[in-house]
């Protein structure tokens, strides 16, 4: 199977032949033959030329979506795209996150709002304070600009990924 892998900005082509307990792979011309043991559906134990690689795979695997692979202690965030599944869906790039959106990184409660709509702010200046796990965290503007929208009020409970404010 031919696939495309991206790690950060780095892209590689990978060809893989899965023969259950044995695997052949070719990454940009580098060839690997690995013994494979699937670990409880959550990772693999690879042995290549006597060297052991204990790998864990975290996250839901879908074409274009980033998952975490931990080799030993080292984490890698990898997105696998399947050229066969790209037809008609050109916007697979998951990295097009609006820099001007202030997104809640985790669930919490808004305890203070430090700016008003229309206010001119610098990059890194505080927009609001969100309390989670008993710590108050100042949410800082990702860029300089004008506060275009404040989507929450003091006391509101926010969810992970919720857009709290927009800076233009």
């Amino acid at each position, binding site marked *: *199977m031919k*696939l495309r*892998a991206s*790690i950060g900005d780095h892209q*590689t082509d*990978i060809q*893989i032949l*899965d023969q259950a307990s044995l*695997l052949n*792979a070719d*990454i940009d011309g*580098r060839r*690997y033959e*690995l013994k*494979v043991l*699937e670990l409880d559906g*959550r*990772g*693999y134990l*690879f042995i*290549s030329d006597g060297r052991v*690689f204990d*790998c*864990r*795979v*975290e996250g839901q*695997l879908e*074409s274009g979506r980033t*998952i975490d*692979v*931990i*080799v*030993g*202690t*080292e*984490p*890698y965030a*990898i997105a*696998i795209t*399947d050229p066969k599944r790209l037809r008609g869906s050109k916007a697979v790039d998951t990295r097009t996150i609006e820099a001007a959106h202030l997104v809640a*990184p*985790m*669930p*919490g409660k808004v*305890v*203070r709002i430090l700016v008003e709509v229309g206010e001119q702010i610098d990059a890194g200046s*505080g927009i609001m*304070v969100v*309390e*989670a*796990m*008993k*710590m*108050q*965290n*100042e949410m800082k503007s990702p860029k300089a600009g004008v506060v275009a929208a404040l989507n929450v009020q003091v006391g509101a409970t926010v969810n992970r990924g919720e857009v709290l404010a927009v800076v233009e």
Partner: protein
Amino acid sequence: MFRKILIANRGEIAVRIIRACRDLRISAVAVFSEADAAALHVRLADEAYSIGPASSTQSYLNIESIMAAAERSGAEAIHPGYGFLAENAEFARAVEEAGLIFIGPPPEAMEVMGSKTSARRAAIEAGVPVVPGTTEPLRDYEEARETAIRFGYPVMLKAAAGGGGKGMRQVESEAELRSAFDAAKSEAASAFGSSDVYLEKVVDRPRHIEIQIFADMQGNFVHLGERECSIQRRHQKVIEECPSPVNEPYLRERMGEAAIKIARAVDYVGAGTVEFLFSDTSREFYFLEMNTRLQVEHPVTELVTGIDLVREQINVAAGTSLSFRQEKVRWRGHAIECRVYAEDPESNFFPSPGRITFLRVPSGPGIRDDSGVVEGAEVSIYYDPMISKLAAWGRTRAAAIDRMRRALDEYAIGGIKTTLSFFREIVRDEEFIAARLDTGFISRFNQRRKERPLERPHPAGGSQAASLHQDIATIAAALSYVRSQSRRSTNHVPHEESKWKMAGRVAGLNRTALKRSSEHP
């Protein structure tokens, strides 16, 4: 001795106390919030009672509902652990009024030490040096501004009722004072129910060294030496050591005596910790505060002295005198503890709650892991994000670091982000290895990291190994994709799949099935 003890806490410390109860053949009673119904501390207990909703103000801080659980269980004593109600004098009184024993100091001692401003006064009266600062809470911003000018920047704002770095802000200049003052007050109010803050001068390159003390009802006072807690972020300790790399018997003796003086001044009973700031340059120490409870980092003292602090706490509360005298205390080897938090070190230590999908805990020579979770556990947003404490002991500091490095590499936690990766880098850091520690360590470490990205911790080889590991990771990701696709297609047949391929796959499956049945007739 008690027959039954209720543990008014959760997480790793509740588990730690249950273990001490087991050692002493005491029945352990757990309490739990709705979020903790399946938590490890509940599973390990003999009895467990629900005390309310997830929010800690309605459960682990709810005195009424904990007392109701105590009454129902027939427990004779209550151990508060640390955090929550551990330093709440009102709770200690409620326990006593119900005819039970509070495993901790008398409420009067807690009250004096509970307010940092009155603790400072007590230390001054006992003749122990303190950091220059205010002894009363600040009335308003204007007073804060004037005091800061008097001491000179940088200054530190602290919650009078504080602890754990909450309600605490270092202020570099007057421009930052206003927002820091408001933030400290509001954080203090939400964390401790009191918005009182006071101000201290910042000591230059300070080490944070604390002394473990112990007292019994017979009037014996001892100290168990120091712990070095200089490695902090957001004024929260992340790595602790015993002994301090300063390791001077003379200094230990002087600080130990000062700590005992303070404990005596408030008629202390049980385990307590007196925190000092130690200036590396002047070799002077200043009283910071006294924690009237068991500390998070107590395992390092236990590893080095061999004394079980929780067992001793229970014995002392039951009226037994201390099982050892000062001259019998010996410090053997070196211990280091890393606090494993559910936080993302790559994104400014932001909390990372969620389900622990994978857990492999290290062990082997010299390793101790005090954890409150198991695989499948949910790290909830409601409580402190610390999930375990990993401690290593060795004959020397270098040997302890070696063991810690090995254990950290063995430790694997999946599903959430943790501070493990951060610790793996710290134990390889030259300044850490050379023990150049002070409270500015983490920010300097982060700076070094930015300037010269540390080599990823490899078993062997440099950049070649890095690209090899990256290839292996890519293969693992690709293989997962391939297998998830084939699993999907065996579940519901996708239309693009050719009939031939399907037939081939079915034949393949049959072959394996046949092979299996011939292997196991």
